[in-house]
């Protein structure tokens, strides 16, 4: 593969191009386009977790002045394709989870719509529901495959024999709770139907994918649907096509001619737009007396909705992390009367590596080894899962460099050895990993505007990742032009197709397409193009993909302070060192790493969606009761990366970095808390209640 050889823009810590709009509040998010005559939608949600709608009395709502329509399954337009039950909104009276949309009001103002929605009387024939994930359920099943397409179970060697004869063993169960994405911008759709064409201003991480699925469901040609999404207020995996977008589209079709605005309330963000499945993970490790692993077994139990399968691939990273002659991984699911889970920042990796890396810390202690040294001892030569060489793997360098930066050398390994007043102090370490993902189908188009300027267009999504800036940097170097001469447009289905912003794949996928388009442009027009000259290219396949295992790696170190009286935990500092190939923009990359590690902190200490099994819903469904870190929880972040050259991954030499920050962080924190207190918490989040004696 050819690579970008002369890098002038790539590697520069440029300020974000969308900065001035974002800091002045003038960047338009989906709800924020000014219309003369909008309508507002407010949904009615089921208050049973399972059953059938038996009767809807919308008369009081319809009688309110300003109410334009009340949609129910009895009067909503028929969808063309209802095979995906999650998207079959208002088509039948079945209720599959508590909080499902069973009706919706469209009105002249938000206040009228919301009040009218409260007047709609929905009666349900309730059926008994089942919402509890437990390891002892007798109906756990093996899904056909995991959400990534990876096989559900893998086996190498003979785990049972190796484990039975290992000198040192560990057998522990770790759990992670249900979590909700909670981007600051709620899911939003503004839908306008003019009789033949549908326009959506949507908060989405993939406008083309959303359009394709939406068009299919509605029975429209894709050329009849346009989605506009230049600014997205966070997504983290949740802003793909869910029922909320379908509902807005249906309402737009009913009213016709006027835009219908629908933004979820924060409370509504806890049902129907996806979440991270809780996990119950059993890890068994066996090692010889030298601390070399001979047996690894990782068994995962998660949940999905009865209506749709989604298997969180928590044990997949275990297939590649460490060397061992025997290894077994399994995934089992319980199908429950719950909303459908979805990808949530580092799906699989985040919960799975909490379990694996916590187990590695416990195992290091069992082996009498320093946790950094223990990991180095078990570094694989080639990818244990595929048998392929790594395109590049520098985990050991990250661990050693991180240890040096963090000040790991003179650490007393004994727990509860350090105090500062009432604060018990401890430190912990964990590995991080994330695969290099590329999704097919991205197309970039480059046009010459004259005066040395280029227009680069691709329907990529900047969900806070910095794509507005980094793609311009890639285009500049690919064209050997100045970055100030690159005019970039993204976030509109009128632009060429691009893959979804997911799997930390955006830069790889879109950047490769841009690179290819630039190459085509220069091949066609050389160094003196004429105004209007244009070239377009699709992201090519990567011929190296079947020859190399491609992953980014990192190491996370954390210091924990635990109040001996109260169990309050503070993380005053963390160090993250990453090997993620070429860093396109050091300024935005550092923010991505910090953002990911802040998510890891959140996962370790704060987040938990509490389900009341009697009702089947998430009880703590707002920001006051579902905690994410506040500014005071965030301490010092020391971020560094290894200068890693990898000519195999893509022309830029870059690996995705949006998710790796979260991956090892929770385990590093849990290990630091153990080191501080002698208490090993295996069930996230680590709350004061779990640390009080």
């Amino acid at each position, binding site marked *: 593969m050819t690579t970008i050889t002369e890098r002038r823009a790539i590697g520069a810590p440029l*300020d*974000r191009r*969308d*900065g*001035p*709009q*974002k*800091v*002045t*509040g*003038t*960047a*338009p*998010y989906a*709800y*924020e386009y*000014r219309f003369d005559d909008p309508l507002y939608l407010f949904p009615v949600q089921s208050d049973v977790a399972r059953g059938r709608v038996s009767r809807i009395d919308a008369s009081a709502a319809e009688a309110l002045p300003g109410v334009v329509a009340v949609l129910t399954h009895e009067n909503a337009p028929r969808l063309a394709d209802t095979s995906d039950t999650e998207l079959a909104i208002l088509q039948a009276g079945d209720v599959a989870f508590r909080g499902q949309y069973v009706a919706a009001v469209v009105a002249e*103002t*938000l*206040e*009228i719509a919301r*009040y009218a929605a409260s007047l709609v009387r929905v009666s349900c024939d309730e059926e008994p529901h089942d919402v509890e994930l437990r390891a002892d359920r007798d109906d756990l099943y093996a899904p056909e495959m995991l959400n990534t397409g990876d096989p559900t179970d893998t086996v190498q060697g003979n785990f049972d024999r190796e484990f039975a004869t290992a000198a040192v063993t560990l057998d522990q169960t770790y759990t992670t709770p249900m979590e909700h994405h*909670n*981007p*600051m*911008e*709620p899911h939003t759709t503004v839908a306008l139907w003019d009789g033949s064409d549908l326009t959506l201003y949507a908060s989405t991480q993939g406008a083309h994918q959303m359009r394709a699925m939406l068009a299919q469901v509605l029975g429209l040609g894709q050329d009849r649907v346009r989605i506009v999404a230049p*600014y*997205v*207020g*966070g997504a*983290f995996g949740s802003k793909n096509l869910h029922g909320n977008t379908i509902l807005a589209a249906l309402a737009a079709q009913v009213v016709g001619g006027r835009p219908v605005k629908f*933004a979820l*309330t*924060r409370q509504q963000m806890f049902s129907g737009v996806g979440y991270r499945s809780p996990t119950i993970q059993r890890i068994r490790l066996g090692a010889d007396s030298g601390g070399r692993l001979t047996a690894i077994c990782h068994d995962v139990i998660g949940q999905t909705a009865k209506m749709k399968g989604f298997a969180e691939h928590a044990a997949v990273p275990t297939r590649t992390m460490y060397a061992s002659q025997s290894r077994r991984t399994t995934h089992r699911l319980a199908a429950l009367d719950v909303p459908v889970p979805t990808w949530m920042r580092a799906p699989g990796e985040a919960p799975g590596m909490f379990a694996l890396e916590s187990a590695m810390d416990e195992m290091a202690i069992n082996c009498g080894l320093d946790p950094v040294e223990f990991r180095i001892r078990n570094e694989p030569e080639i990818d244990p899962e595929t048998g392929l060489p790594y395109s590049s793997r520098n985990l050991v360098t990250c661990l050693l460099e991180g240890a040096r930066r963090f000040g790991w050398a003179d650490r007393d390994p004994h727990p509860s050895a350090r105090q500062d007043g009432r604060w018990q102090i401890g430190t912990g370490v964990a590995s991080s990993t994330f695969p290099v993902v590329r999704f097919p189908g991205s197309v970039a188009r480059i046009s010459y505007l004259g005066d040395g300027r280029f227009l680069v267009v691709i329907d990529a999504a900047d*969900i*806070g990742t*910095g794509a507005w800036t980094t793609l311009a940097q890639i285009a500049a170097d690919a064209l050997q032009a100045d970055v100030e001469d690159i005019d970039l447009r993204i976030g509109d289905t009128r632009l060429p197709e691009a893959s979804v912003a997911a799997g930390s794949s955006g830069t790889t996928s879109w950047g490769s397409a841009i690179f290819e388009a630039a190459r085509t442009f220069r091949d066609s027009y050389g160094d003196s193009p004429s105004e209007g000259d244009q070239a377009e290219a699709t992201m090519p396949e990567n011929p190296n993909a079947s020859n190399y295992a491609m992953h980014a790696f990192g190491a996370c170190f954390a210091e924990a302070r635990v109040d001996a009286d109260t169990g309050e935990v503070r993380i005053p500092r963390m160090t993250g060192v990453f090997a993620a190939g070429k860093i396109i923009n050091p*300024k935005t990359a*550092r*923010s*991505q790493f*910090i*953002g*990911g*590690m*802040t*998510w890891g902190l*959140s996962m370790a200490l704060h987040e938990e969606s509490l389900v009341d099994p009697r009702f089947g819903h998430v009880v703590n469904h*707002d*920001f*006051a009761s579902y905690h*994410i*870190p*506040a*500014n*005071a929880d*965030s301490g*010092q*972040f020391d971020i560094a990366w290894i200068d890693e050259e990898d000519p195999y991954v893509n022309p830029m030499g870059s690996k995705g970095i949006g998710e790796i920050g979260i991956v090892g962080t929770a385990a590093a924190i849990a290990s630091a808390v153990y080191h501080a207190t002698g208490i090993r918490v295996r069930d996230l989040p680590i709350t004061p209640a779990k640390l009080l004696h």
Partner: protein
Amino acid sequence: MDVGITLKVDGIQQRIAVDPRTTLLDALRERLGIYGPKKGCDHGQCGACTVLLDGMRANSCLALAVAHDGAEIITAEGLAEDGELHPMQRSFIEHDAFQCGYCTPGQIVSAVGMLAEAEAGWPSHVTRDLGAADVPLTDEEIRERMSGNLCRCGAYANIVPAIRETAAGAGPR
């Protein structure tokens, strides 16, 4: 029944008719098309809706517009004068103190309001010497005082130096 009120928003007098149920946040966004203040939670639990309300930072989502007739409101858009970014805005860009940008206008307005509070000698939860007339604005103080503005992207680590530098450059009033 809609009620007529007057709000001075970013220097401009605006006369609008509002449903008594309309919050200042929705009045700004849906009646006036001013979308800087954002709806992150609508319940005073995230700070994305922060505006300067008669000089004080406040959550516009919990203020009924009819109860603030005649108020003077500054949003992030109003901080930029004559097309020039406010020093806090420039500092946020320089320090990459935002990612998705949705909490950002609220963060910036809150930070401006917070600096005024600190300059007035207001203590905070982390102020050790409660009796002191002046409270030095350490990073710990900034973090605590800005904790009413949630950021899901996790930009806090850059928000703090962005504010610190602006405070240092601000000088005495």
